[in-house]
């Protein structure tokens, strides 16, 4: 018992210290939480805080659940509708280019079909957390393109939900076709039930969980999210999508704003453990083996972000300055990529995916903010936009 407590406390502290260090020099926290895990893990020389990543497994799982639960809670279809055709087409260009390139890269690497689908998402979906923080810190909230950038993140969130739902049966371990069909059907029935609950049952759910005091509300929604995530896992859908759906159900209730406020500290704490635990599983020795694919992926991401940013600016009638801001703000990869790598590891996919995603996230964590803070100067070397 005391061993696990020391491991958990050390994990929090190491993540906190390294994360703060990163903030001090202007980098996002998520990659630094992960780096803390790599340093403290069994695969690096020096202090080994945690011999066995499984010790933190439950806490990391709660972190993943809280991340997705919060995402579902914030999920607002109306933001997508409010963005109109401009936003849908811009989002489609971004996703089409980046996810498309991710799939192509995945197949080109030759690690396998399932692996290619995971890489598509890990490379294709930007980190909302990193992009939003960058916009606040670079003081760009008043800029005209900021709304477009946030809109693209909304489109990506919608895509993420669908993608996670589809990914579970793909990652399934079915041996015969009949088994596979059964798993897909079971997964979709389960999701349909949750979706119906979100659409028609939110009033009842709201009455069940909403109480006057924050204490019992917190206990209830955490229980609800973790339980449904567990059942989702049993049903062959990932716990991630289960937690997301619970967030979506609760976002329709009157308690939404209070839950949003209450879940944040929980999410921050346990998500840090999740990123840390992911770091524990990474052996820096494996990283050199994936350096080639990662540099190709990072270069591809930067080029496609510029292309997509320019296309989006043209749709919105913006200039190259706005195109450049959008392109470089959306470079960051974080929570989604790491979640996908975790799902891949749990499904027993090619072991190179973990180090690949870890290095990819680290590289973009450094390159992203550096380019984003200089995006206005970089705009001058981009091609002019004819409108």
């Amino acid at each position, binding site marked *: 018992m005391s061993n696990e407590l020391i491991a958990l406390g050390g994990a929090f502290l190491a993540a906190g210290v390294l994360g703060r260090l990163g903030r001090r020099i202007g980098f996002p926290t998520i990659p630094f939480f992960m780096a803390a895990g790599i340093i403290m893990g069994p695969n690096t020389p020096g202090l080994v805080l945690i011999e066995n990543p499984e010790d933190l497994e439950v806490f990391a799982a709660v972190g993943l659940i809280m991340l997705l639960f919060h995402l579902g809670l*914030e999920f607002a279809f109306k*933001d997508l509708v409010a963005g109109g055709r401009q936003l849908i087409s811009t989002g489609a260009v971004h996703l089409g280019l980046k996810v498309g390139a991710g799939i192509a890269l995945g197949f080109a690497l030759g690690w396998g079909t399932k692996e290619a689908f995971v890489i598509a998402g890990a490379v294709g979906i930007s980190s909302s957390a990193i992009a939003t923080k960058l916009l*606040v810190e670079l*003081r760009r*909230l*008043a800029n005209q393109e900021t*709304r477009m950038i946030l809109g693209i*993140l909304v489109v990506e969130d919608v895509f993420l939900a669908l993608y996670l739902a589809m990914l579970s049966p793909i990652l399934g371990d079915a041996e015969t076709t009949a088994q596979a069909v059964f798993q897909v059907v079971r997964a979709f029935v389960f999701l349909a039930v949750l979706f119906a609950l979100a659409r028609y049952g939110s009033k009842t759910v709201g009455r069940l969980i909403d109480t006057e005091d924050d204490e019992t509300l917190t206990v209830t929604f955490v229980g609800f999210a973790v339980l449904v995530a567990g059942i989702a896992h049993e049903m062959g859908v990932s716990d991630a999508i289960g937690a997301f759906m619970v967030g979506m159900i609760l976002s329709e209730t009157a308690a939404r704003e209070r839950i949003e406020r209450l879940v944040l500290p929980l999410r921050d704490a346990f998500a840090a453990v999740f990123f840390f635990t992911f770091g524990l599983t990474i052996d820096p020795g494996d990283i050199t083996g994936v350096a080639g694919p990662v540099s190709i992926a990072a270069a591809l991401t930067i080029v496609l972000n510029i292309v997509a940013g320019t296309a989006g600016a043209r749709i919105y009638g913006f200039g190259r300055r706005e195109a450049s801001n959008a392109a470089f703000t959306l470079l960051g990869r974080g929570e989604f990529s790491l979640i996908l790598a975790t799902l891949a590891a749990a499904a027993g996919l090619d072991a190179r995916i973990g180090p690949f995603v870890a290095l990819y996230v680290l590289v973009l964590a450094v390159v992203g903010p550096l380019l984003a803070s200089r995006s206005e100067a970089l705009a001058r070397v981009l091609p002019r936009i004819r409108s």
Partner: protein
Amino acid sequence: MSINEQDLPGIGRRYEVQASRGQRVVVILHHSGRRDLYVMDRHREDPSCVVELSDDQSRRIGAILGGAFFKPAVVEEIERVVGEFVVDWVTLGEDSPAVGRTLADLGVRKQSGMSVIAIVRGKKTITGPDPSELLKAGDRLVVVGRHKDLPKFINMVVG
């Protein structure tokens, strides 16, 4: 003057107000309660200044800008309007029609729809005054009721 209002998904709301001499002020209301104030100069893409405010700080600044800050605290308390209801206070002059009469024989509540909830007389405050209380010049009446009934009440009591 037009105020442009937009949602910023994941962050909060954005309000843009046209200021003088081509300047624009953009207010960002974060979900967390924090406020950012961006001042944008004409023909400039970058904000010429950005101020970050906490919830409390922005309320104070808002009060100063709205001219509400220099009122004595009592008045601020009394003038708080809740929906269509209003709490206000009036002072009786030497020749106000209510001087020398009681709330009962004026029929304040019946005639105007407003209720007198306190009388401030010099240093003394009479809360929940008796309907038979004789009103004097210089009395300050604290009154509660619907906003639209207030003029009728003032006309009847203060003159």
